[in-house]
């Protein structure tokens, strides 16, 4: 009886020993993985913060202004002037009757091969 019990205890303890040994190593493994992941997160956070800083730098009016000044020839972006503002009242109402004469002139000029839309605006 006692011998049986001893054998059982011996077996359990040796199994427990092996299990603990294995567990220790797997925990070490997991800890190493965790450390790697943490390092990776830390690094990516760092990179993210750099990218965010870069993004906000690129978006600053103080950064955009010189770019616009530099490419003034190509972009021709300029501050809006008061005269460039219009209001709804400036747009004429639709004429009551269709402008038949105007339409005829347009078609005639199109047939002649001249498209008024090609002409620069403002009669220049």
């Amino acid at each position, binding site marked *: 009886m006692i011998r049986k019990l001893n054998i059982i205890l011996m077996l359990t303890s040796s199994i427990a020993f092996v299990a603990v040994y294995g567990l220790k190593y797997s925990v070490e493994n997991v800890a190493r993985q965790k450390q790697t992941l943490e390092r990776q997160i830390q690094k990516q956070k760092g990179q993210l913060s750099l990218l965010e800083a870069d993004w*906000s730098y690129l*978006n*600053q009016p103080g950064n955009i202004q010189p770019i616009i000044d530099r490419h003034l020839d190509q972009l021709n972006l300029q501050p809006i002037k008061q005269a460039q503002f219009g209001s709804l009242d400036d747009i004429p109402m639709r004429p009551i009757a269709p402008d038949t004469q105007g339409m005829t002139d347009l078609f005639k000029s199109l047939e002649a091969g001249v498209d008024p839309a090609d002409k620069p605006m403002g009669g220049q």
Partner: protein
Amino acid sequence: MAILTGGETPIALTGGRQLRGSLTRTRIRWVIAGLVAIFAVVGGRLVQLGMVTTDNTIEGRTREAISASRPAILDRNGLEMAVDIRVPSLYAEPRRIIDVDDAVEKLRTVLPDLDPKWLRDKLSGEKGFVWIKRDLTPEIEDRIYQLGIPGLDFLTESKRFYPGGPEASHVLGSVNVDNQGIGGIEQYIDKQDLDVLQSVGIANGQNLKPVQLTIDMRVQHAMREQLLDALDRYHAKADAAVMLDIKTGEVVALVSLPDFDPNDPSSMIAPYKGEPAMRFNRITAGKYELGSTFKTITIAGALDSGLVKMTDRFDARFGVRFGRFTITDFHGQNRILTVPEVYKYSSNVGAIHIMQQWGKDNYRAFMTKVGFDAPLPIELPEKTNSYIPKSFSDVTAATASFGHGISITPLHMAAAMAAFVNNGIYEPPTLYKRTPEEVAADGKRLISERTSLEIRQLMRLNALEGSGTVMERAAQGYRVGGKTGTAEKVEHGVYSRSKDFNVFASAFPLDNPQYAMVVIVDEPHRESVTTGDTAGWNAGQVTGRIVAAVAPMLGIAPKFDKSVDDQLVPMAIR
């Protein structure tokens, strides 16, 4: 112990058994005592180890504090004004390093610029912590990590970065190497509760709510561009401007030139054109005699008291005599003027008469009411006290009525102007956004709605016919109105004839006021021979240019309808 007797059976004597028993007991006692002693030693050692506090601080600061971050600072549209960058820094624990020479050799393959002798000194010894190199790139960090030298490790440090550079320097302030605010809103944030969070190590990136300011970076940039241009154009020593949202008291833009780059805190105290202490915030920390802009204050208070009416006439034919002094007008009209004319021609004599009819004590009390006595409750730590005599004598009251002999900050003036056009409700200026409830709770009535309307009429009148016409040419259509102020600077105790301090206090659009602005230009000169050097020509013109640049951003469209001005400035006061 058995004693043999003659018989077969040994007789055990009770005495011997007792003796043996007591011997065993003694032995057990000894063993117990020994065990207790051993356990006591072990326990004592445990307690001793428990008492040991390992020094985790780095140059006196905890690791948490070093890697702690500061909240991002955003402008009113959510654009970042200040962000944290996380950078790895290399440190060593010399007592954990096994082979110093090997470590030095390996490290130098990645960081060849490190001096080997210096490095060897750093790495040897029993110290717990030494910095090797700070602010590394992630690539370098990776390569050092691959070397696998024991005793070397990295700490992620937070570095402050201001993407706008000097754009909003005086609003933001800066931080020192230890990431603590040393001016501007950064210092204010620290004073709130950030330093507590940092010291317990919970201030890291995720749990910090960004701080949103009321500054609009677009307006801020446009204003700064115009002021830089003005410095050059008028060969001025310095200039500054502030714009307030009159309905909430929120500061939309605040520029003071010369400024500094917050990314380089040492530039804060760098001399400007050989002069030290030039880069301070002139809007909140500079107090000046704001000259004739004070006539707006005088007239607003006088009209509001009911003792002076718009139609009252004042004799400006002769100067006002005080003993041996006589105060005369700069733009002398030498006739009898109405209140709008006093304002329009900026008549010192008229202003004195208005103030006298109102009463000098009433005038002094009104200054307190407008908040000129106390420093403003703005969040910036750079503040100064005003200089206004406790009580006015006849002469000081007379000079104060046109802004001489008393000094306030430009922000004081801006806040007062904002209140005058905001139907008379004063909102204390702030850099933090306010909810409508807070606005309603903080609002304080300064003058009646009627007086507010009259002041708006006067301000617009001055732009159309008075000293603001240069400004009006630059900002046509935006219904700007304002008052110039040209003060002679005090030099060696006397007013200098050649050095002026010019101001323009304005508000726009006056048919539905939204923003108030004060522009100051220190020691301006004529732009060309055809222009003047009074405030209208410099501070006024800059105001016009700033408004023309920022009004479209703020959603204000120009109106060229003449009826707007006809309604704004009734024929009766023209």
